[in-house]
């Protein structure tokens, strides 16, 4: 069986309101899947549930990563096993520098008793910093504190590059970015593409898909995948609008 992040018939509620309503999707390693959908369709909820956000209740369905049940793991266990979420609105961590934060994150992935080699760590950090067109001095700023929208998104991708997850979920990484910042971020993501990583790209607009070209595109409406297709589906959606996609909402189309 191909290694994949597999979601089956997932139902999610928050405060008794059902947000995800029977969603199925599989993101195999080596592929980039885009989920597009209008505001309120449940895209960000899906991202948070995959990462284990405690505010959401999974009422039905399953999520497995390479066959392992993800839903019974704590958020940090999921992270260490290879799930990465690039947040739409990343939190500030006042007083903690990017370098120290990432160091703690990398350290947390090492076996008990093993100490991270500082020189190797910094060599890798600076390599990734350059990849994203950032200045080294950036790593001594406190995580997201006083960052512009673009800086925050780039910091998310820097962390993605450093932590080398098996599956990355990018939640509206393109929102609030100007075209230059978008290109840099896309370049960073593209350089990480490869057979060992599956990427789930969540977006409202098709613009980012010009730069990160997906293998598959899914349209999410009212908590379900209503259409799935190739790259061309995004363009069609752009042309015809979400109302067209909604027409299919009555009969959900599942993909495997």
């Amino acid at each position, binding site marked *: 069986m191909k290694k994949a992040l597999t979601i089956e018939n997932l139902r999610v509620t928050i405060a008794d309101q059902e947000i995800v309503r029977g969603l199925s999707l599989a993101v195999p390693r080596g592929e980039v899947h885009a989920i597009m959908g209008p505001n309120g369709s449940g895209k960000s909820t899906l991202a948070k549930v995959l990462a284990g956000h405690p*505010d959401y209740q999974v009422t039905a369905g399953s999520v497995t990563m390479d066959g392992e049940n993800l839903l019974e793991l704590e958020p940090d266990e999921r992270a260490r096993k290879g799930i990465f979420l690039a*947040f739409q609105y990343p939190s500030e961590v006042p007083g903690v520098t990017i370098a120290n934060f990432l160091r703690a994150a990398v350290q947390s992935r090492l076996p008990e008793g093993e100490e991270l080699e500082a020189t190797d760590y910094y060599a890798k950090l600076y390599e990734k910093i350059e990849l994203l067109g950032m200045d080294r001095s950036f790593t001594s700023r406190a995580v997201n504190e006083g960052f512009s929208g673009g800086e925050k998104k780039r910091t998310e991708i820097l962390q993605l590059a450093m932590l080398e997850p098996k599956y990355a979920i990018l939640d509206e990484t393109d929102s609030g970015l100007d075209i230059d910042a978008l290109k840099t971020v896309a370049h960073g993501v593209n350089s990480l593409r490869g057979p060992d990583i599956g990427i789930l790209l969540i977006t409202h607009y098709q613009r980012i898909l010009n730069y990160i070209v997906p293998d598959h595109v899914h349209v999410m409406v009212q908590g379900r995948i209503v259409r799935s297709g190739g790259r061309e589906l995004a363009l069609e959606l752009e042309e015809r609008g979400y109302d067209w996609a909604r027409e299919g909402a009555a009969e959900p189309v599942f993909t495997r």
Partner: protein
Amino acid sequence: MKTQTKSVDIDRSAGDFAYPEVHVRDAGAGLSEKTVHYISDVKEDPDWVREFRLRGLKTFLEKPLPTHWASKDLETINFDKIRYYLAPGTGAKRSWDEVPEDIKRTFERLGIPEQERKFLAGVEAQFDSEAVYSNIKKAVGEQGVIFVGSTEGLKNHPEIFRKWFGKVIPIGDNKFSALNSAVFSGGSFIYVPPGVKVKHPLQAYFRINAENFGQFERTLIIADEGSEVTYMEGCTAPKFNTTTLHSAVVELIALKGAKIQYITVQNWSANVFNLVTKRGLAHENAEVKWIDCNIGSRLTMKYPSVVLKGRKSRGEVLSIALANNGQHQDTGAKMIHAADETTSNIISKSISVGTGRATYRGLVHVPNHLKNCKNNTECDALLINSTSRTDTYPAITVRGTGNAVQHEASVSQVSAEQIFYMQQRGLSKAQAMSLSVNGFVNDLVRQFPMEYSVELKRLIELEMEGSVG
């Protein structure tokens, strides 16, 4: 996201262990003139000290507990159950080899001899009421630096001791300074001759080992003109079910152009009432700096002060307090400006965890007739849980026209989203908390000496580890 809290397991911390008592001198439980005479007899006090103690006792008995402004929890201290003097009767040794084995192993377990070899210019180790070890590096001693226990200082250097003793903090300053004056024992006596700059820190370690016990050390540091010294104190006690009282008095005198830096690394167990009076006197162009970190204890009341007596003198208090479940850190700083062109700086950071409560009390006083005085006060509080509490009582009186003050205060909270974000990067909840707390104190800790900041970081990690479910 809910953060579960449970009481902190102090057992994890390195200080929670106790070997059987080894004392041959014991003043018994309760406080009376008899207790004071017992202590004076054992210590062979000169008459003036005996009288000083008796005045202390009288004042202590007369003064009410300060519960009109401070915590009512003070009323739970049973002064009749406490033992006021316990000593092994061995005197302070100059070599660890001479320290009785059963006492030595306590300090070895706390890592004191090792630290001494690594980076200290001198060490004094106090076990319950008396110093059991005190030694200073030969080169430092040859410069004329005196570093001994207060008992020994009083005996061998009466001419310096008597001149300054009780002058910065009078007996009647407060109820607990009066108590200390009555039964004081142990603590350090330091004299640094003019122009001598002691490069490495001198360290004292205060260890409470006995149950139902009160430790009342008295420290006196005199930095003569143009000299410099850094003093570090560490404190621990095992966790007993009964109350332990620690009530020290610390007096610092920085003569013209001298600099004293006084660093406290306190990690009391949760049964300790820590009621300490600390004050420094800064003469012309002198500097007194308190670095004060309060972790643990049931109730700490401590407001390090500087009296800026001489022109252009400087005072500074940098403090961090961590109040865990059931603990109350009532701390702060006082700056009394008494000369022109004096400057003071207070930076206070507190962290409240679980049901912990942190209180900041500050007093800055600049009278009308002074010119060109400056004060900067910053106090920041971090709340970890919704049950955590913080209060700030800054009292700033600045009169006259040529003086400047600046005051900033903030309260922040570690949000559930922040913790989730950090967990998503692989950190456990406890690691995320501890990193957040370290981030909060980071800019302050950067100003501390290296060895101290490492120790502090470790203590914060231990506390935070126990505080999340």
